[in-house]
């Protein structure tokens, strides 16, 4: 979620090819190197068992399975929830293994030591880090496996390994010998693992950098793909939980008699819920009876002693706080501001946002006396496994956590408190305590999802800029007010420095050479907050890119030229992305139809730069986005098809943040929205035409899941300014109050 993580946890590939790292999670750190690979020749998923029984740190059989039919199954040590790693990681292995792409298969790995992120030190998916962090690891696994296959074939054929060549999954000997990889996979596994491998140069790539269709496209187009929601072990019951209306409130008393009378309801139990609250779980033979049972519950809640946030009041407080300086995050001399001939003052408002993944949260738990098996679309396997163990009163090694394919997430499945996992284990515990046995699946309804917390935090920004006669920014005071995502989590010690939550200020100032004096008020509130696709940049890119646009306007300069001048030439990737987007869009050259205008923005997040040139119009007071020309600098592109898809998807999600109704609000502690009718999500008519261009590069790849989101809303707002003369300073957009 943060580029700082990568800075402090650089992946180092040593002489031996081993991957070492300084872990940011000391408790979860791998002790040394852990290069792992191996082969299985039989079918079935034996990886889980291998992971359970193998010693930590070094685990064979973890990443690669070559079957007798020559199919290669790659264990993807991540969650696949749309971002394409289930195809990208097999591509990295296939490139070095030298196989036909059609041989490749992907599988999602369970929680295990071997699958920890080499840079983060825990098994997780986030920070747009999968390809960036697995770039060396997965290619090395492929390269080493290939050498072991060659060694095994050479031994069988009694020839020098140097005489054995490979081609598309076949081993070729000097005297016409021929064997499939699958035929020698068993023997190859017994070969010593080569210590050193030479990885291919970019110019020799056959798979990396080529548009490669997703391995899961057919299954996902035909209803065959199994998601967590679809998983139902033998005898599995379904539970829905009545959660407190205010976060952390408790059940005072409840009457379950009507619920228990509903056919199919098998149990009603009180359970602990997130943030020290409690709720009531209805367990039934299916979702429908469970839901009917929940509706029939009579519950009296005790919400005394928990703060009841109201958004209107909170916003007023945030605005008041923003008038005062907070904890200093960035210092600069802003003494010239007071006497500057031109000034810009702005207050920005950002609401809470729900992630609202298409697949509502769910979790299957099979709790036994000395073991617990969890099936969930987890982004945080290591933490979720540990949380399940704590909740069940077991050791982490007694908990098996299977990673299920997930229907979106956008951060909601990476929760430092493991809220939905812990709750599901608590339901299973209460169910077991009431004398029942067997697995239970907790399903969240859409209403549960919208009301269930862990939102992108609401923030207020206040900015005062001074410009000299030439339009140069000579002083910039800036205050940010909002809740910290990280306070109270295990990430606090690594990502909060001197009281400043790194996710609140990321993207502020960069890449512009401006005297920015930045401070932060880190406010506490009884609303659970969490990262939401592109995290802090969902706020900061909007603020930065609309203010720079405003400064350009005040200076009487073209917004592209103004940016180019203000970005130091050392930021080559920013310049390259902006130049490419401008060139491909026709900005400055092409005349637009009457009523349409250009808007420009660029932003770096997760080490990737995205630059957008958009075309928008305003009709009857409603802004409409027509086209986005996107240029992205993510270094070496791995799968251009996925890069395009991620940019399209991030753009659409960002468009969603501009739509009326894209806000979570609270009144007296209760979330006011509950469905996709009152919490706006972008639909097909909202989708602009998107054209994606990739800046060529052979440097190690950077993130792609999130960086496409931040520059969209500001580019759109900048276009709306051109059309209306109004500066939009609120998300979602509201021209009437701008």
């Amino acid at each position, binding site marked *: 979620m943060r580029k700082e993580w990568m800075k402090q946890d650089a992946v180092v590939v040593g002489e031996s090819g081993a991957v070492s790292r300084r872990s940011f999670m000391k408790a979860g750190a791998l002790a040394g190197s852990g290069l792992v690979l191996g082969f299985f020749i039989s079918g079935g998923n034996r990886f889980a068992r291998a992971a359970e029984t193998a010693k930590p740190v070094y685990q064979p059989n973890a990443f690669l399975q070559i079957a007798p039919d020559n199919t290669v199954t790659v264990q993807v040590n991540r969650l*696949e*929830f*749309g*971002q*394409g790693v289930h195809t990208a990681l097999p591509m990295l292995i296939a490139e070095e293994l030298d196989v036909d792409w059609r041989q490749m298969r992907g599988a999602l790995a369970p929680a295990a030591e071997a699958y920890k992120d080499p840079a983060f030190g825990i098994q997780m998916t986030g920070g747009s880090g999968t390809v960036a962090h697995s770039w060396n690891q997965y290619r090395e696994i492929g390269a080493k496996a290939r050498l072991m296959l060659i060694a095994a074939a050479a031994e069988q054929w009694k020839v020098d390994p140097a005489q054995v060549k490979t081609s598309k999954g076949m081993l070729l000997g000097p005297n016409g010998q021929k064997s499939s990889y699958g035929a020698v996979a068993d023997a190859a596994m017994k070969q010593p693992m080569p210590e050193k491998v030479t990885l291919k140069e970019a110019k020799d790539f056959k798979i990396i950098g080529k548009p490669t*269709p*997703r391995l*899961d*496209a057919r*299954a*996902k*187009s*035909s*209803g*065959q*793909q199994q*998601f967590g*929601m*679809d998983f139902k072990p033998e005898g599995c019951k*379904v539970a829905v939980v009545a959660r407190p209306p205010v976060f952390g409130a408790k059940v005072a008393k409840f009457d379950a008699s009507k619920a228990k009378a509903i*056919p*199919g309801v098998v149990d009603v139990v009180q359970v602990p819920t997130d943030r020290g609250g409690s709720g009531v779980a209805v367990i039934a*033979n*299916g*979702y*429908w*009876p469970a*839901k*009917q049972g929940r509706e029939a519950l009579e519950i009296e809640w005790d919400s005394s002693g928990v703060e009841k946030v109201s958004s209107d009041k909170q916003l007023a407080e945030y605005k008041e706080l923003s008038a005062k300086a907070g904890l200093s995050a960035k210092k600069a001399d802003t003494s010239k501001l007071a006497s500057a001939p031109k000034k810009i003052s702005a207050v920005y408002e950002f609401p809470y946002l729900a992630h609202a*993944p*298409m*697949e*509502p949260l769910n979790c299957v738990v099979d709790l036994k006396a000395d073991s617990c098996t969890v099936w969930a679309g987890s982004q945080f396997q290591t933490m979720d496994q540990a949380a399940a163990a704590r909740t069940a009163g077991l050791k982490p090694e007694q908990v098996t956590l299977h990673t299920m*394919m*997930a*229907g*979106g*997430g*956008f951060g909601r499945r990476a929760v430092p408190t493991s809220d939905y996992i812990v709750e599901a284990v608590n339901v299973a515990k209460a169910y077991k305590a009431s004398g029942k046995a067997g697995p239970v699946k907790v*399903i969240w*309804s*859409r*209403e549960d999802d919208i009301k269930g917390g862990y939102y992108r935090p609401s923030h207020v920004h206040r900015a005062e800029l001074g410009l000299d006669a030439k339009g140069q920014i000579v002083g910039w005071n800036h205050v940010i007010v909002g809740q910290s995502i990280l306070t109270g989590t295990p990430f606090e010690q690594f990502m909060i420095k001197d009281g400043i939550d790194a996710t609140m200020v990321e993207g502020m100032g960069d890449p512009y050479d401006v005297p920015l004096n930045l401070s932060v008020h880190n406010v506490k509130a009884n609303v659970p907050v969490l990262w939401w696709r592109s995290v802090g940049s969902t706020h900061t890119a909007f603020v930065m890119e609309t203010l720079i646009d405003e400064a350009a306007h005040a200076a009487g300069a073209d917004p592209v030229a103004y940016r180019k001048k203000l970005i130091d030439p050392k930021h080559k990737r920013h310049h390259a992305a902006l130049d490419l987007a401008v060139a491909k869009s026709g900005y400055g050259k092409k005349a637009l139809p009457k009523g349409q205008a250009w808007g420009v923005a660029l932003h770096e997040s997760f080490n990737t730069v995205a630059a957008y040139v958009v075309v928008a119009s305003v009709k009857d007071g409603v802004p409409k986005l027509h086209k986005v020309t996107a240029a992205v600098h993510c270094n070496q592109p791995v799968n251009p*098809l996925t890069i395009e*898809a991620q940019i*399209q*998807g991030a*753009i*659409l*999600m960002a468009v969603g943040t501009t739509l009326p109704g894209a806000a979570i609000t609270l009144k007296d502690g209760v979330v006011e929205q509950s*469905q*996709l*009718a009152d919490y706006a*999500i*972008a*639909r*097909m*008519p909202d*989708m602009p035409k*998107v054209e994606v261009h990739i800046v060529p590069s052979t440097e190690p790849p950077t993130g792609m899941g999130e960086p496409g989101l931040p520059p969209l809303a500001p580019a759109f707002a900048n276009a709306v300014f051109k059309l209306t003369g109004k500066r939009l300073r609120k998300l979602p957009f509201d021209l009437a109050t701008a």
Partner: protein
Amino acid sequence: MITLNINGRDTQLDADPSTPILWALRDNLNMTGTKFGCGAALCGACTVHMGGQAIRSCVTPISSAVGQKITTIEAMEGDKVGKAVQNAWVKHDVPQCGYCQSGQVMSATALLKTNKSPSDADIESAMAGNICRCGTYQRIRAAIKDAAKSLA
């Protein structure tokens, strides 16, 4: 016992008549291709065909489906139009997380069964009820047009 005709077969199930078709499919018949997204006909993930029309199975009780022909994503493989749509989906690499795509395919198939060459506006109006949070709409548009072409 209620008898439903699903994918051309009469199927008996023991469920409350108020049970939505969605949950009868998923929980009673273990047909999980049809997805639960909102339970309120707002997202389209649960789209099936009833009497050839695209309907939201999450709000349609099984009692109202008696005597009707229900078709689900599982039958699209054997349906000329459904298969063409699926092939176009794969060709255009449409899915990301994929969770909404059963519903998208069902809505697109229903569209192409009544409109052999839909315009952009036709596609938008037929598909606006199907949410894709990953933002695959541009590829969906292209895939529908391609499927239409392949069926012409």
